[in-house]
């Protein structure tokens, strides 16, 4: 009976203590231990399936709402214009003129030629292949996140309630949980790798650091609620090779490192990132470059070659696009890493946009905001395909090899294979391409037959030596 005389505050304290104990126990049992041991209970997949059902319901609700008002839902996925398949400039112009080309003594110009460039130009204003790759992919069904809703008018009360619940769950439950896990993961990584770095025995250091890296990456993966499906694991990158992959977000690194150990390549950063980098390098051979060294192609190539030549070292992880693209396409691969004579292991990563947009739009928001966004989405669902290793063939130069690898990755991931440079996100396109167009037109004017006319394909020439993560994605999260 003395129970009733205990003041309320005490009671609340006790409840709080019990709650925290239970919470921590659940956390450790269901998340930390599996992370350390590398097993999975399948909770995340169940979560994923439930979410999908809810999304479908939400979209059908919106459609019903729209039908009642006799309007149509705005679907951003249909294109704006119907584009013809790209043909060569020469073919198009001849179609325009209605005459076959033959060598003429005088150049033949027609005022109607302007229509060709005019229409092409306006078509590119309406829908071009490049600029849309640098912003988030649009969804055709709503996933209960405000950030991806285009049909706000059609949300009924019921849907709003569900959405509100969703917000509560995401920000109140999932976000704190994930932040805790992330902090734990990174903290453990820094501390443990530094400790292991003190061990004298090289072999022991290596094997321990592998385990530590894997464990911390697994914790980070759970911090993002990342549900990853790995395909074709028999093709996993081996020592003495380079792993290349398409780049969407700094999280790519965590996703790949969750399943194997890689040596990262990147610029040395200051602050927290720098500390993490220094800690990591104590126990395993990552390659960090000073800012000044990045421009020196030979130095970069040498360091990579040296690393690759040493068969005891892990494979290097490189993102040849050099910048984050929105996961609908693969853009030009910089040839630097393809010049090194070793096996290339291509990997294709494809994110499922329904659960959260993984693309890091570095011009729109910074790293911290991006991570918060990621941690407050539903989940990060992706598929990783390990493609069979490729080697440079006889008579193939680095650019052709790079394009071959890019085509393989694009084909596997269901992405559009583009030859445009990802650097166009920030930089202007080179004048050389315009000159090529002018060149082609001149040939048509003069009536020259051009066998080597590749139409609108650009001949690539890259200037940047390294395709590692640069200042815009200070990625080293682990």
């Amino acid at each position, binding site marked *: 009976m003395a129970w009733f005389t205990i003041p309320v505050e005490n009671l609340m304290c006790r409840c709080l203590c019990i709650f925290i104990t239970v919470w921590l126990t659940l956390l450790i049992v269901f998340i930390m231990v599996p992370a350390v041991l590398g097993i999975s209970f399948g909770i995340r997949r169940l979560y994923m399936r439930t979410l999908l059902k809810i999304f479908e319901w939400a979209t059908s609700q919106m459609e019903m709402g729209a039908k009642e008002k006799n309007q*149509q839902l*705005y679907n*951003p996925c*249909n*294109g*704006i*214009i*119907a584009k013809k398949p790209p043909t060569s400039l020469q073919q198009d112009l001849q179609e*325009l003129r209605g005459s076959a080309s033959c060598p003429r003594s*005088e*150049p033949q*110009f027609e*005022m*109607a*030629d*302007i*229509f*060709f*460039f*005019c*229409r*092409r*130009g*306006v*078509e*590119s*204003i*309406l*829908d*071009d*292949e*490049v*600029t*849309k790759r640098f*912003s988030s992919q649009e969804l055709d069904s709503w996933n209960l996140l*405000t*950030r991806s*809703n*285009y*049909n*706000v*008018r059609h949300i009924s009360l019921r849907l709003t309630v569900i959405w509100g619940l969703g917000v509560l769950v995401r920000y109140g439950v999932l976000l704190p949980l994930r932040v805790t896990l992330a902090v734990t993961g990174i903290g453990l990584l820094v501390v443990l790798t530094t400790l292991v770095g003190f061990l004298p025995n090289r072999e022991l250091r290596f094997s321990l650091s592998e385990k530590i890296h894997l464990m911390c990456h697994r914790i980070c993966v759970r911090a993002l609620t990342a549900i990853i499906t790995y395909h074709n694991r028999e093709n996993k990158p081996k020592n003495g090779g380079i792993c290349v992959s398409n780049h969407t977000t700094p999280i790519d690194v965590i996703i790949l490192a969750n399943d194997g150990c890689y040596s990262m390549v990147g610029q040395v950063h200051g602050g927290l990132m720098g500390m993490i980098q220094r800690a990591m390098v104590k126990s395993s051979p990552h390659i960090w470059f000073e800012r000044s060294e990045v421009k020196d192609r030979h130095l970069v190539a040498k360091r990579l070659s040296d690393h690759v030549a040493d068969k005891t070292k892990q494979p290097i992880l490189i993102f040849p696009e050099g910048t984050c693209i929105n996961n609908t396409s693969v853009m030009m691969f910089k040839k630097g890493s393809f010049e090194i004579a070793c096996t290339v292991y291509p990997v294709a990563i494809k994110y499922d946009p329904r659960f959260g947009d993984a693309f890091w739009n570095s011009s729109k928001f910074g790293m911290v905001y991006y991570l918060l966004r990621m941690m407050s989405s539903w989940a990060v669902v992706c598929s990783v395909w390990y493609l069979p290793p490729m080697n440079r063939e006889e008579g193939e130069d680095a650019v052709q090899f790079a394009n071959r690898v890019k085509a393989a990755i694009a084909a596997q991931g269901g992405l559009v294979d583009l030859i*445009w440079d990802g650097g*166009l996100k920030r930089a*202007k*396109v080179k004048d050389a*391409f*315009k*000159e*090529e*167009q*002018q*060149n082609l*037109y*001149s*040939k048509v*004017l*003069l009536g020259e037959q051009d066998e080597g006319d590749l139409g609108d394909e650009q001949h690539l020439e890259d200037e940047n030596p390294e395709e590692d993560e640069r200042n815009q994605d200070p990625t080293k999260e682990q």
Partner: protein
Amino acid sequence: MGSRASTLLREEEIEEIKKETGFSHSQITRLYSRFTSLDKGENGTLSREDFQRIPELAINPLGDRIINAFFPEGEDQVNFRGFMRTLAHFRPIEDNEKSKNAAVSEPLNSRTNKLMFAFQLYDLDRDDKISRDELLQVLRMMVGVNISDEQLGSIADRTIQEADTNGDNSISFNEFIKVLEKVDVEQKMSIRFLH
């Protein structure tokens, strides 16, 4: 962030644009979405830099002339209405039969208006005639450095000779129409907009 095209554009505006240009409701919404994605400054207007950021337009030899066509005389910003008005020139002519506004005097995408658009690409100083100089400049834009000045000059001379009927050594709009009377302008200057 958050809600986009369909809420930021008011219904009345969409109706007005529909009347003026003949685009359908969903086309206008989709084009507005494109407009906002190009508008990096997020101030409701596009500048010349916004257009030049499109790589495929930047490598078009006449890219600058096309961009210029969107901007009214002396202005450096174009708003969504102006954007749509210019794009309306490229609607296919058949679409007009399906639209309900037969009251429009001459739709923006009529053959004459399409030809006027092309004429203005040549007419650099907007004085309603294409002089030899202007023709040379546009030709130079299209061929780059690949053809010599003399050859280009003779091309320009020949073109003006063939087109000029009133002997003022420049091409007026009517002479321009005459030169292109056999060309299927409707098809060459039309873009198929999806509904």
